[in-house]
C-alpha cells in the first residue's frame, strides 16, 4: 500500500523523520478564508519549522496562493489564527509580515514597470547615506543579488523592458534582499528554464542551511521531489495531509492531489503529421531579438521551439505576428500573406497565446465571458450586436471543456487562480478557431492533471488537420508532445531535433553551447 493510499482515509500527519525538528517558526491554526459566500480555504492547520523546505501542492484553484497570501499579510483570514515563536500575530498589511520576517514571492509578477530594477528591488526600504538615497550602493547590491540568481539584467533597466523571466528573478531577489525567517515561493519557476531553476534551487538549499524556513509551491513535481522535506497537499481548500517529502514519488503526489488515478501525462502520439506545409516563415528578422529565422510547420504537425530564457522565441513570434516591429516572408497554405497586426493574424487563421497572461492576455477587471470572446469578436458575434446568450453558452462550454475551476461564473478574470487563468486564456485563443495555433508556454502554472488535458487538446487540434507551434521552456514537455523541435539560441535557430535525437541533452546542448555538435535529425 502506497503512502498516498494509506493516508487517503485519515488525515493524520505522517511522522516525519530525518528533518530538523524544533519549535515552529510560524504556525497556522484552523485557517479559513471566505470571499462572500465562497469558501476558498477551510480549517487549514500547518506548522512551519526553521530550516525546513515545506512544499505545498494541489490542483489549480486548490487555494495554495490564497493560503500563502494569508500567511504574509496580503489577505486576512476569515477564521483562524497565526502565531510566531509562540505568540499570536495578526497581519493586516504585508509590511507587517515582512517586519516579522515573512517574505512572499508572488505567483503573479508584482513589480512597478515604470521603475528600474534597482528601484523595484529596494522599494520602501531604500538604502540611504545621510538621508540621501545611495543609488550607487543600491545598484551594487542589486547587481550582486541578481548575479547570485544568474540574472544578467542591468540594475538600471526599466522593469517594463525586461523579459518575464528576468522579472521573476527580480521578484525573487527582492524577497531575498533582507534576512527573513520564512520565505515563501509561489510557483517561482513557472517562467524559468533549466539553468535559472538550478540556481534558484541552490539558493533555496542555502536558505535551508541557514535555518530559514521555506514554503515552496510548484506544479513541477520533480522540483518538489528534489527539494521538499515535507509536502502538504491541499484539495478544494482543505488539507489532505502532510507527508515526508522523500517518501512520495511524483506519481503518488499527483494522485493525492487529484484524488484519483491519473492517466499518462503525455498522450499517445498519433501519426497525423503530413508533408503539406501549413505555415512557412522565411528570413524573419525582429530587430534586437531574432535574425534571419526560417521554419515551416506542416499540417498535422506539432512543432516545438526550445531555448534558454532570452533566446528570443517570444519576440520572434511577436514580430512575425505584427505585435512588435519585424519583417518576415510568410506563406500560409502555400499563398503569401502579409501580417501587420494581430487582427490580420487572427483573420488569417493564426492564433497566438501569449506567455504574459496577466499583462497581455486577460482583462483582469473584466468578467469571464467578455474575456473569452475578446479575440473572436468578429467571428463569434456576426453583425454588430453582441450575442450575450451565445457568449454565456460558450463560457459554460469552455469551463467544462477546459475544466476551469471557479466558484461562480460571475467572477472577474483576476479572481481566478493562476492556472485557471491560463486555461481561460487557452480557451480564448482557440475560440477564434485558428488553423495554426502558436502557444507560448502552454502549461505555465497548470497542475499536472490539467497538463495532460492540455496536451491532449493540442493532440486533438493537429488531429483536426491544424498545425501547432509550442514554445516551451520545459524540455520534457516538448519531447513529450512534439513531432519536431527547433532550438533557438541568441536569436537564431541553432538546430533541429526529431525522432530519437529529440533528447534533453541534445536540446540543452543546442540551446547553450557556442558550437554544438549534435547529430541533427533522426527517424520518425
Amino acid at each position, binding site marked *: 500500500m502506497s503512502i498516498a493510499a494509506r493516508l487517503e482515509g485519515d488525515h493524520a500527519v505522517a511522522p516525519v523523520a530525518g528533518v530538523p525538528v524544533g519549535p515552529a517558526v510560524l504556525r497556522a491554526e484552523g485557517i479559513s478564508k471566505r470571499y462572500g459566500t465562497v469558501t476558498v480555504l477551510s480549517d487549514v492547520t500547518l506548522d512551519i519549522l526553521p530550516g525546513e523546505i515545506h512544499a505545498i501542492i494541489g490542483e489549480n484553484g486548490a487555494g495554495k496562493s490564497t493560503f500563502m497570501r494569508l500567511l504574509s499579510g496580503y489577505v486576512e483570514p476569515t477564521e483562524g489564527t497565526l502565531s510566531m515563536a509562540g505568540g499570536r500575530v495578526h497581519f493586516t498589511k504585508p509590511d507587517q509580515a515582512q517586519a516579522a520576517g515573512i517574505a512572499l514571492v508572488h505567483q503573479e509578477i508584482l513589480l512597478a514597470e515604470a521603475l528600474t530594477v534597482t528601484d523595484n528591488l529596494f522599494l520602501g526600504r531604500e538604502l540611504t547615506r545621510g538621508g540621501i538615497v545611495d543609488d550607487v550602493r543600491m545598484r551594487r547590491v542589486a547587481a550582486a543579488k541578481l548575479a547570485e540568481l544568474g540574472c544578467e539584467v542591468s540594475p538600471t533597466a526599466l522593469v517594463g523592458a525586461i523579459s518575464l523571466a528576468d522579472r521573476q528573478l527580480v521578484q525573487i531577489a527582492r524577497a531575498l534582499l533582507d534576512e527573513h525567517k520564512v520565505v515563501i515561493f509561489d510557483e517561482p519557476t513557472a517562467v524559468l528554464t533549466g539553468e535559472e531553476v538550478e540556481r534558484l534551487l541552490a539558493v533555496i538549499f542555502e536558505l535551508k542551511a541557514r535555518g530559514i524556513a521555506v514554503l515552496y509551491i510548484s506544479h513541477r513535481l520533480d522540483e518538489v521531489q528534489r527539494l521538499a522535506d515535507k509536502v502538504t497537499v491541499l484539495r478544494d481548500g482543505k488539507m489532505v495531509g502532510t507527508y515526508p517529502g522523500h517518501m512520495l514519488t511524483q506519481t503518488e503526489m499527483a494522485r493525492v492531489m487529484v484524488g484519483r488515478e491519473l492517466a499518462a501525462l503525455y498522450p499517445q502520439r498519433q501519426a497525423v503529421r503530413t508533408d503539406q506545409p501549413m505555415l512557412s516563415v522565411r528570413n524573419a528578422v525582429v530587430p534586437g531579438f531574432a535574425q534571419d529565422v526560417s521554419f515551416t510547420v506542416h499540417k498535422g504537425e506539432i512543432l516545438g521551439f526550445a531555448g534558454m530564457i532570452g533566446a528570443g522565441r517570444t519576440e520572434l513570434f511577436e514580430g512575425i505576428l505584427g505585435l512588435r516591429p519585424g519583417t518576415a516572408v510568410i506563406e500560409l497554405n502555400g499563398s503569401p500573406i502579409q501580417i501587420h497586426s494581430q487582427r490580420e493574424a487572427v*483573420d488569417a487563421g493564426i492564433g497566438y497565446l501569449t506567455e504574459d497572461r496577466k499583462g497581455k492576455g486577460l*482583462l483582469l477587471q*473584466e468578467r469571464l465571458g467578455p474575456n473569452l470572446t475578446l479575440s473572436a469578436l468578429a467571428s463569434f458575434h456576426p453583425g454588430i450586436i453582441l450575442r450575450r446568450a451565445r457568449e454565456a453558452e460558450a463560457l459554460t462550454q469552455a469551463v467544462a471543456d477546459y475544466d476551469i475551476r471557479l466558484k461562480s461564473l*460571475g467572477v472577474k478574470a483576476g479572481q481566478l487562480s493562476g492556472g485557471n487563468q491560463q486555461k481561460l486564456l487557452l480557451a480564448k485563443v482557440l475560440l477564434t478557431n485558428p488553423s495554426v495555433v502558436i502557444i507560448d508556454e502552454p502549461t505555465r502554472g497548470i497542475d499536472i492533471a490539467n497538463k495532460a488535458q492540455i496536451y491532449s487538446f493540442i493532440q486533438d487540434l493537429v488531429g483536426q488537420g491544424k498545425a501547432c507551434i509550442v514554445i516551451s521552456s520545459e524540455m520534457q514537455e516538448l519531447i513529450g508532445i512534439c513531432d519536431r523541435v527547433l532550438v533557438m539560441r541568441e536569436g537564431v535557430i541553432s538546430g533541429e531535433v526529431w525522432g530519437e535525437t529529440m533528447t534533453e541533452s541534445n536540446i540543452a546542448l543546442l540551446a547553450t553551447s557556442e558550437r554544438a555538435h549534435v547529430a541533427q535529425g533522426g527517424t520518425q
Partner: protein
Amino acid sequence: MTALTQSAPARNDRQFQFSWTDAGPFLALAVLLVVGFAVNPDFLSTTNLGNVITRSAYVAIIAVGATFVISSGGLDLSVGSMVAFIAGITIMFMNMMVPGLGLWAIPVGMAIALLAGLLCGLANGLIVTVGRIEPFIATLGTMGIFRALITYMTDGGTIPIDRSLREAYRPVYFGTLGGIPVPILISAVVALLGAFVLYKTKYGRKCAAVGANEDVARYSGISVIKTRTVAYVIQGACVAIAAVCYVPRLGAATPTTGQLWELQVITAVVIGGTALRGGKGRIWGTIAGAVILELIANLMVLSDFVSEYLVAAVQGVIIIIAMLVQRFSR
C-alpha cells in the same frame, strides 16, 4: 463537472444583483431633489424641472460621447470650443444657403454640422492615437485651435442666425413632442444609442478593452488606434448634435459659446461613475451626472442663501459631497 451545476445560480446572482456603485449617481440625484424641494418648493414644479432637464440636454449629449472617449482611455478637453466652432460653421452655412434653399437651409446646415463634428473628432482622434500625444495636451491644443477659429469667423463678435430661419428653427430647442421638450427627446435618443453601442455591440466591448488594458486589446487583435479614434469621432458627432440643438436657443454663436463646458462634461461623466482611467463607461450614470450639475446650478439661482460671489464655492462643495456620498455608500 461541479462547475457546471454551480453556474446557474451564478448567473441569477448577477441579474438580481443591486450594485451600489451603479446606483450612486441616481441616489445623489434623488437626494438633490429632496434637498431642492426643502429649499424652495417651486423647485419641483413641472416648468422648473422641465427647464432644467432641457438645459442639461447639451451637456448630456456631449457627455455621452465623452463616456466613449473616457472609457476607451482618452480625454477630450476641446468639446466646449468645438461646440462654438461647429455652431459658427452651421450658422454661417445656413445663412449662406438661405437665399437659394429657403428653409431647406436648416436640414442641410444640420448635415454640415454633423460632418464638421465628425471631422473635428477625427482630427482629435488621429492626433491622440497616430500622433501618440497625451490626450490632455492634444485636446488642449485643439481646444485653443477651435476657440481661435470661432473668434476669427466672428471677427471677435457674434454670428447671428438669419432672421428668416429663426422661427422655423426655434422648435428644435423650444418645441415639444407629445408634451416632452425636443432637446430631452434628442438627448434620450442619443443616450439610448450610446448605451446600445457601448453595451450591446462589439465596438463597445473593444472600447472598454482598449481602456482597460491596451496590451491585452492589442494581443486580442483589437486595433487600439482604430477603436480610440472612433471614440473621438463619436464624441465629435455628439458635439455636433449638441451644437445643432444649441443654435436655436441663443440664435447666435460667439467666441465665448461653450466656454468651460469641457469641465462640466467631464464632471458629469465622472459623477456618473465612469472611471477617468478608462475601462468602463456608464451612459445612464453620465446622464444623471449632467442633470445633477444643472440641478445644482438651478438650486443656486432658486435659493437666496448664498452670496453671489460664493456660488462657485457652494457648487464645488456640493460636487465633492456628491462624490463622497457615492464613494462611501458602496
